[in-house]
């Protein structure tokens, strides 16, 4: 298994050269990063060419990296009452409180916010590969659709469009899949609140179902804490204990 993965990594580098922005091997899994422009070309080769033969696209998912690595318990001073109970106010780690509980719109356009992650499986060679593509524009994330390469990707792309707003160029039927008819927004983005924006109830006077702004308040039971655990500390960057609390 070990040598097979290294061999595959070698083949990938050899065959695609500059098209592969990065190729890593972590936890016995291969991950390569591609540019949207060359995605279709590389994916077709990955499916058809002998050393790869990835017949199956097992999974496609969208990822929003906007809040990566952000904790909400960043306090170092202890007062006589002890440590403070986490960060006050809004943070992405509080799952993006927009709307009536304050606005945290994301304005930077890094080109590294939205990614589509593909998991490929080769039944012939019994190996897997993860492919990541970052969308170049955060405000209008576009990825070419691979529906002509793997027919099974249809609903996965619709799902990623629905939940993250990724536009899959070339998809013949890019409709919402999981959310309600007439839903506004893309619920899995980090700036979409966990409690949602609207709630639904039956209005007896009007005799129909009505949509209203949410009436519940968001709460965080366990704050999000990013810790550099000493057991897993990176050998290159030795950490002195935990970074907070």
């Amino acid at each position, binding site marked *: 298994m070990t040598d097979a993965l290294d061999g595959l990594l070698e083949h990938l580098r050899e065959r695609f050269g500059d098209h592969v922005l990065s190729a890593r091997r*972590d*936890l016995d*899994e291969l*991950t390569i990063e591609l540019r949207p422009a060359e995605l279709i070309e590389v994916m077709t080769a990955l499916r058809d060419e002998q050393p790869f033969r990835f*017949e*199956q*696209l*097992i*999974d496609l*998912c969208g*990822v*929003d990296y906007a*809040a*990566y*690595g*952000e*904790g909400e318990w960043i306090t170092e001073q202890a007062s006589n009452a002890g440590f403070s109970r986490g960060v006050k106010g809004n943070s992405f*780690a509080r*799952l993006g409180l927009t709307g009536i509980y304050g606005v945290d719109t994301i304005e930077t356009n890094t080109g590294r916010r939205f990614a589509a*992650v593909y*998991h490929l499986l080769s*039944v012939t060679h*019994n190996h*897997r590969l*993860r492919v990541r593509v970052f969308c170049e524009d955060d405000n209008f994330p576009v990825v070419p659709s691979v529906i002509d390469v*793997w*027919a*099974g*990707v*249809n*609903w*996965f792309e619709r799902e990623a469009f629905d939940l993250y707003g990724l536009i899959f160029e070339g998809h013949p039927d890019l409709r*919402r*899949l*999981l*959310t*309600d008819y007439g839903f506004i927004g893309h*619920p*899995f983005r980090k700036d979409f609140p*966990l409690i949602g924006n609207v709630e639904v109830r039956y209005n007896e006077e009007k005799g129909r179902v009505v949509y209203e702004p949410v009436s519940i308040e968001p709460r*965080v*039971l*366990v*704050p*999000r*804490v*990013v*810790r*550099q*655990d000493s*057991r*897993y500390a990176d050998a290159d960057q030795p950490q002195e204990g935990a970074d907070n609390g």
Partner: protein
Amino acid sequence: MADIRSYTMNFGPQHPAAHGVLRLVLEMEGETIRRADPHIGLLHRATEKLAESKPYNQSIGYMDRLDYVSMMCNEHGYVLAIEKLLGITPPRRAQYIRTMFDEITRILNHLMWLGAHGLDVGAMTVFLYCFREREDLMDVYEAVSGARMHATYYRPGGVYRDLPERMPQYDASRFRSDRDMKHLNAARQGSLLDFLDDFCERFPACVDDYETLLTDNRIWKQRLVGIGVVSPERALELGFTGPMLRGSGVEWDLRRKQPYEVYDELDFRIPVGTNGDCYDRYLVRIEEMRQSCEIVKQCIAWLRRNPGPVMLDDHKIVPPSREEMKDDMESMIHHFKLFTEGYSVPAGEAYAAVEAPKGEFGCYLISDGANKPYRLKVRAPGFTHLAAMDEMASGHMLADVVALIGTQDIVFGEIDR
């Protein structure tokens, strides 16, 4: 000649054969389907987003509720992904227990599928027979975890507790005669493993019963043979996994090809179909039940011989026992930290997949080093199967859609997530 107009028909979401909340918009020409457009999402609970707001361990219970007829297999995929990121391996005994419960779950799932599929197609009796055996396995779930369905039994680092020494028995009640109670408790005199042993002894005969009712049944064959044929190449392109793929003749089973836990030490066979129609998928699943029963037997034999821990002894991840907490300060601190904050998982990403009864159930976890997942993606097998509904149903009759939903083993908990 009469002019046949095409028209659109709604199938579900309130339809007994829609297996929950499937809304199918069917474009029909007479009684022939031209296009099937499944509208899903009526059971969407945003499980993946909820998982982002909770410490790792608190989401295990959500996994049960994804595919709610194969509960422990879902937990397994999630727990394996966490373990991969943490770099830990559970003790041998825990691995055997997990394997055993995965197979029990497979039998549970296939029984539910067989019963529902039979009912959809018009065979009432099988449903009742299947639920009789399901009841015994539910009791096994309950004995080990306290819950009949949503067990939350697997944990990163092992399983929550060891198998009980005594199988719970039925209590006396005024609705039950002494003779009935004696009969009900006959197999429950010993431990859980004794009960399972007894179950494995009688289960193959039960499968024979189902087969007597269905396999050569003329109506059953008329409804299934030649319906929803998928070629092996197309099945791969469409992303089919599990019995849907094996029914088309592709010999692919993660338990054999990418073994996890202790599957590489066990002796079992992978059934494969030849025609890729509903009937072949039925035969594949029936044989899988028999094979699962064999695997359970092997696990029982191993578990009887090898007592030992079922959880890792690493209190950075696994909570200490109540007893330790009473007189050990450090255990107290560990307990407090684990239950108020949880453990932080090193930054990175992992994909872990198990061969769930319906196909490949995978969990893709991205961690940024926090105590909560940064992103969790659940790869549900039924999702790709249902996506192929349009292709499988076009050209068939309306009544065949029901057979197709049955053969795809649709459960909306995992498709809508």
